[in-house]
């Protein structure tokens, strides 16, 4: 188990450095965190309210021409088919955000318990589960997604679930690492001494402690899943029905459209960028706020 030793060493060193640098900001979430949350609330809110907002339907051809530059009528301009890019970005948010959310939720529900079980029981159970995680991580994730999405169907549910499978291993490994740390702590031993069963210890003592770092990872993972949907779109395998951010960027990415209607791809790219940035930043702040030691690869 030599590799364990080496990673532990580097982690300790990392923590000392972090303590000295981040001492001042450590116990605050900071203004940036709240800006990030505001942006996320705004995007989620607009996505949820899309049907009642005064915006064009996602396939409506707007008044005016094709590839029109942004104006007061069309905040993000119109695309190659004359549709309003701003409205489509909001409609796209519905799909892109659902994919991210469902993916991470399924990753949490499968990976979390598996990781806790592996970290709690150790031994053979741990060996098997860790091996599954390692194999999942060795898979080129986009290839796995391609295989499954192509052979099943390109519905929102399948795309999200496939990305969820990909989220199992990283989330599970984090849960396992944290469980190992907490399983030896006094409050867990105390609980065992007073006769608590394994199941109870895992749910009542370990889960709440493992949940916090997992929620930080969930924020980061959601960004990854939203981006992965875009990657699938570029391979022609994203959700079939309706607009998604990935598909919108793809539609505006050919040389001709880029030359005459740069806004068609750049508008969704900006929204995607700010959303990913907000998720990354919020996740990062939550992680250092709760001072979690394991890094989340």
């Amino acid at each position, binding site marked *: 188990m030599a590799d364990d*030793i*080496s990673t532990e060493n*580097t982690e300790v060193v*990392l923590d000392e450095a*972090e303590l000295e640098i981040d001492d001042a900001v450590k116990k605050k979430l900071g203004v940036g965190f709240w800006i990030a949350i505001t942006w996320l609330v705004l995007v989620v809110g607009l996505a949820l309210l899309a049907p009642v907002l005064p915006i064009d339907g996602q396939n409506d051809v707007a008044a005016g021409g094709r590839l029109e530059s942004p104006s007061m009528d069309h905040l993000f301009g119109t695309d190659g088919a004359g549709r309003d890019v701003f409205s489509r970005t909001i409609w796209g948010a519905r799909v892109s955000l659902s994919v991210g959310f469902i993916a991470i939720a399924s990753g949490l529900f499968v990976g979390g318990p598996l990781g806790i079980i592996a970290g709690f029981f150790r031994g053979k159970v741990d060996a098997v589960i860790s091996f599954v995680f390692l194999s999942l991580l060795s898979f*080129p994730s986009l290839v796995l997604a391609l295989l499954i999405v192509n052979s099943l169907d390109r519905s929102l549910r399948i795309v999200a679930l496939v990305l969820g499978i990909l989220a199992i291993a990283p989330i599970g490994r984090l849960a396992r690492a944290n469980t190992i740390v907490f399983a030896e702590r006094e409050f867990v031993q105390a609980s065992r001494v007073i006769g608590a069963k394994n199941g109870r210890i895992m749910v009542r003592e370990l889960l709440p402690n493992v949940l916090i770092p997992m929620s930080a990872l969930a924020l980061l993972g959601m960004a990854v899943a939203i981006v992965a949907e875009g990657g699938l779109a570029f391979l022609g395998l994203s959700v079939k029905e309706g607009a998604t951010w990935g598909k919108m960027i793809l539609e505006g990415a050919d040389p001709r459209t880029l030359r005459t209607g*740069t806004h068609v791809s750049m508008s969704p790219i900006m929204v995607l960028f700010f959303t990913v940035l907000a998720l990354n930043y919020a996740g990062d702040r939550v992680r250092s706020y709760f001072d979690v030691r394991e890094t989340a690869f």
Partner: protein
Amino acid sequence: MRYILQRVGQLLMVLLAVTAITFASVNVLGDPLTNILGPLASVDCTDVDAGLIEDTSTRGGTSQGDCSIIAETRAEFNLDDPLPQRYVAWLGNISTGDFGTSFQNQLPVSTVIKNKLPVTLRLVGMGLFLSIAISIPWALLSAYRANRAFDNASTVVSFGLLAVPNFAMGVILFYFFAVRWQIFPTRYDPSSVYSQVKSLVLPALTLALPLAATYQRLLRTDLITTLQEDFVHMARAKGMPNRTIMVRHALRPSMFSVLTVFGINTGALLGGTLVIEQIFSVPGMGGEIVKAIVRDDTPVVLGIVVIIVTGFVVVNLLVDLMYSILDPRVRRG
């Protein structure tokens, strides 16, 4: 030595598991027969096989002729054998370098891979080189004056870079450098070595920028820690120039985190080139596997997955071995 063998054994297991999953999923989720024969494969032969119907091809129904083609094809590709048996047979072939024949154009899969792999490897190689070439000087500069203006600006820039998805980065670079300023070609130009390298600069940069940001963050943190060590103070007291201290003394012991992540990322990179090759129309493995998956060309899909996963596993092994060179303590496992 025992440590190395242990690692190799573990990695072989991973390879087996991953190929088994791929093999099972392409064979269970898609029907290979359909892809070899097209619509013919959907002919219902149960009645013919059972001897209930004679040749009915004249009436446009199920014909015995069709059914014999189906039976031949099934035999030719061993489709009647149980899945585990086919997997073992396939593994045996792979280990002798025989990746089978493409369903699509009857070319040996090894030829397909031989044509496409060099382009992808060149792209990944250039990407890795650029990421290192950018991140090391960048990290040295930010760690040298930590928490000053340059360092703070770098933090913002690298955080921003990490939030740009690779396809978006591709589109942005493509727009500015290929469409607007026309410094680089919009399509892959295979005419000469120079034009090939030139065509790969933008895709390689797309791969490199987010990696460079990651490595810069990690290396900077480790460098700051190393710079507080006694041997650095010692070197400083001896009157060593700062440049020498940074490059000669501090860099090597600060490389651990970067190396770990380098290994993980390099594997991911082989898969991640798929999308980028599509944007810049680079004729590599990415385009090939997408084509093969869409057409259910099972042997090609499997062959490419084996290559990608092997690459990932080998890179990780090399990274582990690099540890033991950098830090002798690891060897005493």
